Each structure stands twice: as C-alpha cells, then as structure tokens.
C-alpha cells in the first residue's frame, strides 16, 4: 500500500481560497437579491387623466410559476395578480355575478351550437396594441387545441368544433349543445382559462419572453418580478385606452404583490405595515384588535358540507336509513359553529354545493334545524351508534374552507352530545380525494362492511354558476367514473340543470335540486364562510368581489 503525505500548506492555501470564495459567493448572492428587492415609488403623471398616487402591498396566494407560459402550465396563476393584469370576456361584478367585460354581449344560435361573443372595441393591451376578436380566438385556440396545452380549457376540447374570429365577433362552435360556454370565458374562482392574451405580442416576443413579461388589458400592468418574492405592478394609464378601461383607472399607482404562506406571517406583516391587504383566518381577527388594521369581510367565499359515504351505493350502509341521515344533520348547531368557530364570519347554509350568494341558492329553504333531542330519538329508533364510532374524514386546506379540522372536531363534539362517539381523521387532501373517488373508505363499495360509518367533510368555492365539478360528486361523469351516490333522479336533475340555457330556469332547477336533497336528507349542508381580509389604516376604501377568497378589484382601492 502506498502512502502519500499531503502538502498541507499548499492544500491549506487552496482550501482557504475555496472557503473564502464560497462565503463571498453566498454573501454576494444575498446582497444582490437584497438590492434587487428594494422597490421605490415614483411620482406619476397620466396625461390629463386622473392621477393615481402612492403604493400598496397586497398579499396574494402564491407566486410559484410566475412568468411561465400559463397555458402550458398545470398551475393556475395566483388570481390576485392575474386578474389584475388580465381581463376576461365575461367578468364578475362586485356582487359576484357574471357581467360583460371584454365581450359586451353574447348569444347562442337557435340550434344551441354556435355562441357569438361581441368583442368590446378600442380596448388596449398594456403595450398599446388594440385587443381584437382575433386575440380572443388566438388565446382560446392555443389554450384548447395546442397539443402541449395543459390549460383548464382543454377539458372542453371534446365538445368544441371551432373557435374563430368573425369581424368583431368571437364565434365558438360546439359539437353538442353546451349551456356553460360563457362560463369557460368567465372570471371565476380558480380559473385562468378565459383570460385574453395579445397574439401580436406573443408572436413578436415568443411564448417564453411574453410570459415572463405579461401584457394584458387590466387596470394594472406588470413592471417586474423579484423571483417568487414579489411582483411589482403599476397603474395602466395609456391615454388612448377605451372608456371601459378608463372607468377602472386605479387610485393607487403602484401595487406590490407578495405571497407569504404562514398565517402568522401575514398577521405580523399587517401589524408592521409590511402588507396593506391580506387574507386572514377568522381566528386571527382577535389578534388584530387594538391595532391600526381593520377587518373587511366579503360574504360566502367558501362553502363546507358533509357527504354520507356509502349512501345509495351500499345496501348495507346505515346511512340508507333516512332517520340516521336526519339525526346526523339536526344534531349540528350550525349557528354556534358560525359564531364560535368562525367568529361570526360564516352563516349556516341550506344548499348542497354552495351557500347564500351562489346562483340557484334556494332562499326559501331554511338550514336544517338544531334539534338534539329529536336527533337522539331518531338514532335510537334506527338503532344507530350504540357500539363503535362514527368517523369524519377531512383535510386541511384553508383555500377550500378555513379550518376544516377544527370544524370536524366541533361537529364530533356535537355528535357526542347526542350519544355518538365520533373521531376526526385529517388526511392529505390529494390522497383523500383519490380514496373518496376510488371508493376505498369503509362502506362505500357495494355490499362492503361499513365500520366505521364515515362522513366526508369537505369545502369548496362558493361557486356562482354551474361548472363541471358541480356534478362530479353526484354523477359518474368525472374522470374516476364513480360518484358518491347511485341515484338516477339525482343525476337526472343535475344533468338537466347543466343542459339548461336559460339562466333563470337553470337557477330554478338548482334550487329544486336543493329542496329535493333536503327533503331526503341526502347530504349535510353546513356553512358558507366569508373571505376575511386585514386592511391597513392606509387603505381608505376598497370594493372586493363577493365570493372571491383572494384580494380582488385592486383598482377600487383608495388611500
């Protein structure tokens, strides 16, 4: 064996150089980002238009994936910045209703196969180009038919025959009658599919560069991004923009969007002036008392309800007994849950896939009553729960509904009061949904054992219209090919509503569905929660959109 002594001095020298280099590199990296992170507000002029001034820092949901070609990306953008930079053919009013935006109107042909969207004239992109029906056709064709597209719009490819511009109109031809085409083009929670990109800009810069420096028609235009730390936006003040755009001229000149993930960080930022608007949890309201930060809430942003797993699917399920279903619903004191668990920032709901403010909400239908003594009687009559436990499965995603595990525990406590032992299992959301639609929870499969009887507590957007996931839980049309129910009437009612082109009639059908569900106690409607925001004293007024859980309508902010 040969043995070699290292020249220690030589090696020491090299090591020192290496170490110093590493430390310097680390420091340089830190300092470089530090300097690039500083944002300053400059004075502004706007060619005779109203002159926005000042700046505000807004907390969005996330900034991951910013600058990527959104149509080829599976991550939807954070709506806080996306809906501020871009517009949709169909927008949302402050009340959360679909209203004309980049399209002034839309109509469907008599055969219900061709939708025509009248494109608003004179709308400017942030680079000065005029938005046309051609831009809409380019955007939606790319999103739907590009083989590399991963946009949400490819869900509709199978129904779509063609998308093209015809003068000032966008024509969408479908293979079968589809009532929800305007919803594809609409600003709604979680969707980016309908935003309109500039064809000329994309072709000139290429998709990569155009995505990193996005150009839309919104009230604010993109200035810069500091990695995933922050985005800088500034008011769009081109004097040639059209009147519709001028009507949405911001009052605040510069907006910085950041996306901290921890709730405690958001609260700390609000308290110290590090943020001017941030979504917060209702449980954090108390911590903002006696500070300069006020709380603004918009109703019905998210909705929570419970499903009886196995009902109508498995003949052995105890949930097939309507007495059990009624008892498990009326054992819950919804008003107390809203008051105590959500600090009054929630209301009891009577409907099964949305709360008050959702389209089709049956205003004449009262939430299930709280009647623990009747619940006890019903359970005794049904001989349910004398042995073993009831299981509530849920997950932790404040975006779907805040504090679902806490809500589950509170419900378990109420079940305890009527003599039922209930446990709460908090699972990873992805795994849980796979198991739910895979039918692997106890009692879901036909004729399987049902111990423990399981309730599935979930939250979702308090949707404002019929979209495909409305029916997924109830019918076999989802990609799992399995529903949480096996009810021909349920499926028929929802599919009929989905196929209805008249909005009023569709709403009436949805309300009818809710009444029918309530009469049969097929589900446990719970609460519709507000979106709660902390707003600094610097912000004088703001009109966020009802039902949007993220900060919206930033152009309405005033200092």
């Amino acid at each position, binding site marked *: 064996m040969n043995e070699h002594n290292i020249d220690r001095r030589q090696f020491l020298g090299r*090591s020192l150089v290496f170490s110093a280099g590493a430390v310097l590199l680390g420091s340089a990296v*830190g300092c470089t*980002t*530090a300097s690039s992170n500083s944002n300053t507000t400059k004075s502004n002029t706007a060619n005779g238009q109203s002159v926005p001034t000042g700046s505000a820092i807004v907390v969005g949901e996330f900034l991951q*994936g910013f600058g990527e070609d959104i149509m080829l990306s599976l991550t939807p953008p954070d709506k806080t910045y996306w809906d501020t930079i871009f517009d949709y053919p169909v927008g949302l009013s402050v009340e959360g209703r679909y209203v004309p935006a980049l399209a002034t109107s839309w109509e469907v042909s008599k055969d219900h196969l061709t939708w025509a969207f009248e494109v608003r004239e004179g709308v400017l992109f942030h680079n000065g180009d005029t938005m046309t029906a051609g831009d809409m056709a380019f955007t939606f064709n790319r999103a739907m038919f590009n083989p590399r597209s991963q946009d949400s719009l490819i869900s509709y490819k199978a129904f779509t025959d063609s998308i093209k511009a015809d003068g000032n109109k966008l024509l969408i031809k479908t293979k079968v009658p589809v009532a929800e085409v305007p919803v594809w083009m609409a600003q709604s929670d979680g969707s980016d599919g309908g935003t309109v990109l500039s064809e000329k800009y994309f072709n000139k810069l290429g998709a990569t560069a155009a995505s990193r420096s996005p150009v839309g028609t919104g009230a604010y235009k993109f200035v810069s991004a500091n990695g995933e730390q922050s985005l800088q936006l500034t008011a769009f003040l081109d004097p040639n923009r059209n009147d519709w755009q001028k009507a949405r001229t911001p009052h605040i000149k510069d907006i910085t969007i950041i996306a901290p993930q921890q709730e*405690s960080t958001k609260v*700390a930022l609000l308290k110290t002036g590090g943020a001017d608007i941030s979504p917060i949890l209702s449980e954090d309201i108390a911590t903002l008392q006696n500070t300069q930060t006020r709380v603004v809430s918009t109703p019905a942003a998210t909705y929570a309800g419970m499903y009886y797993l196995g009902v109508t699917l498995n003949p052995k399920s105890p949930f097939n007994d309507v007495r059990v279903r009624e008892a498990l619903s009326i054992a819950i004191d919804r008003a107390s849950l809203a008051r105590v668990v959500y600090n009054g920032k929630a209301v009891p709901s009577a409907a099964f896939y949305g709360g008050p403010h959702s389209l089709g909400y049956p205003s004449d239908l009262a939430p299930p009553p709280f009647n623990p003594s009747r619940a006890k009687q019903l359970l005794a009559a049904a001989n349910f729960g004398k042995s073993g436990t009831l299981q509530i499965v849920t997950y932790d995603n404040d975006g779907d509904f805040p504090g679902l595990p806490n809500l589950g525990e509170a419900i378990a406590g109420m079940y305890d009061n009527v003599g039922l032992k209930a446990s709460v299992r908090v699972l990873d959301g*992805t795994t849980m949904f796979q198991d739910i639609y895979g039918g692997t929870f106890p009692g879901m499969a036909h004729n399987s054992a049902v111990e423990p009887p399981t309730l599935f507590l979930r939250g979702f957007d308090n949707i404002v219209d019929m979209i495909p996931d409305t029916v997924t839980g109830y019918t076999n049309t989802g*990609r799992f090919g399995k529903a949480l129910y096996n009810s021909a009437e349920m499926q028929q009612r929802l599919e009929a509503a989905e196929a209805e082109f008249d909005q009023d009639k569709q709403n009436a059908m949805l309300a009818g569905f809710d009444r029918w569900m309530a009469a049969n106690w097929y589900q446990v409607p719970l609460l519709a929660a507000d979106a709660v925001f902390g707003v600094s004293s610097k912000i004088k007024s703001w009109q966020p959109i009802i039902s949007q859980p993220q900060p919206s309508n930033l152009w309405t902010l005033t200092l």
Partner: protein
Amino acid sequence: VIRYMGGRLLQAVANILFVATLIFVLERATGDPTETLLPAYAPPSEIAQVKRNLGLNKSELSQYVTYLNNLLHLNFGNSFTTGQPVTQVLAQHFIPTLSLCVFAFGVSVVIGIPLGVLAALHQRSIVDTTSRGIALFGQSMPPFYMSIVLVLIFGVTLRWLPVAGRGGLDSYIMPSVALAAPAIAGLVRLTRSSMLDALDSDFVRMAYAKGLPRGVIVVKHALRNASIPLITYAGLVLAGFLGGAVAIESIFNWQGIGQMTLDAVQSRDFPVLQGAVILVAACFIAVNLFVDLLYVIVDPRIKIVK
C-alpha cells in the same frame, strides 16, 4: 491526492445514482401524478394529453432510462406543474437557501464555538452555566416556534427587523438565528466537552509547563485538537441547513429549496422533487468530502491513504 479525489468523486457519483434511483422509485410508488395535477372532472382525453405532455404515457423503465440519460447531461427535465426547466427552478430557489444557510452557519460558528470554549475554560462557573443554559434553550426551542417568537419580539413589538421577505442584511438576522439556534446549542456542548478533554491532556500541560501564553495554548493547541468532532458536526449542520429549512423558509417567506420541495411533494411534481433531492444529496456529499479533506489540514496525524 488526485487519485483520492477521483475515488471519492466516483463514490459520489454512485451515491447520487443510488439516491436518484431511490427517489424515482419512491415517487412512482405514490401513484399517478395526473390524479393530483388534474381536477376530478377532467375527461380521459385531457388526462391522456397531459400524460403525453409529461412523458407519463411511457413505461416506467422507459421513463427511468430517459431520466438517467437526462441526468447525465445535467438535465432534470421540466416541472410538471409550471413547465419551467427544473435546473432553472432549482437555481432560483437554491440561491436564497444557500445565502440563508451560509449566514446561519456563520452565526452558529461565531456564537457556538466561542461559547463552548468559554464554558470549558470556566468550568462550573457562571459562564459555564450560562453557556449550557443557552445550549439547552436552543435545543429545546423548536425553530418553528422560535421564529414566531422572534418575529413577535423583534418584528412586531420592537419593529427593529423586517418580519418576512428576503431583502437587505437585516432580513437575514431572524431567520438565521432561528435556523442556527439548535446548531449553536450542539456546537456549544460539543466544543465544551472536546475542549475539556483537550485541556486535560498531556500536551496542554506540557504547553503550560513551557510557559506558553494561555491564548496560544487554548487556540493553537487545545482548540485545534478539539476541532475534529466540531468539523464533523459543522459539516453535518451546514448540509442539514440546506435541506432542512422548510419551516423557517415558510415563516419568513423565503422561497427557498425547502418550501419548493414541500410544494413539489404536495403537487406530485416529480421532476422538481427529483432535482431537489439530488441537489441536497450532492450538497451532503460535497460537504462531507470537504470535511474529510479539512481533517487533514487541521490534524497532521490524519493522512490520506490510497
């Protein structure tokens, strides 16, 4: 030296290959990522298109061969969720993490080692008790909780430091201290015990007998001889920082590798997860190699043997 380095590099490549294979297999064991990536109502045609786009329509073996081939060319593929090249994603997130780790490592060493030395020199004195108290505090306080406490005191109440975000040097202080606290505790205890052993040795007594100044004895003789376990521990600390700052990054909105890895796990973004795991493994291997080489410099009795 070249042969030694060559051997270690080959060993490193084998280790990385093993880690890369392991993460590939474990990821696939979690199931089909399109189930997470797509909504429940996505039609089969959409699922097929997305699988094609992501290369998930091929067999696992074919995916593995492509993966290894790309890895050889330092190509980690594109993120499933954003489409961004993984190398770009890693670079974007590694820089904040690296800068935080270097800073926190500096804090650990600058505080931990002197405190440990002082504790050893003044055994059973107030200095020793205080040092051990600091160590106990650092080890028993979870970094997540310490971060929140630091934010409340120095960010919200005193308003001395920014509560979140990566900006100037002041934004590094709280996350670095929170990240470094357990490491400081470890360094204090290890330095103290190693120094006590060294101070009790014959060569130190000899140095005193020779009349050498105390500072020289402590630094040049005792500390140097006590530093082998410290170097080992410090190496592990640095490598651990690189992969283990998830909670700190989340609280301080740091957008580093930890937060990125957590997001990748939740969204089943296989390429990003693979890239992150391989990067952290490579960091561990590099730091360990550096530590091994450092032994030779610090302790002349250690030789590189071929």
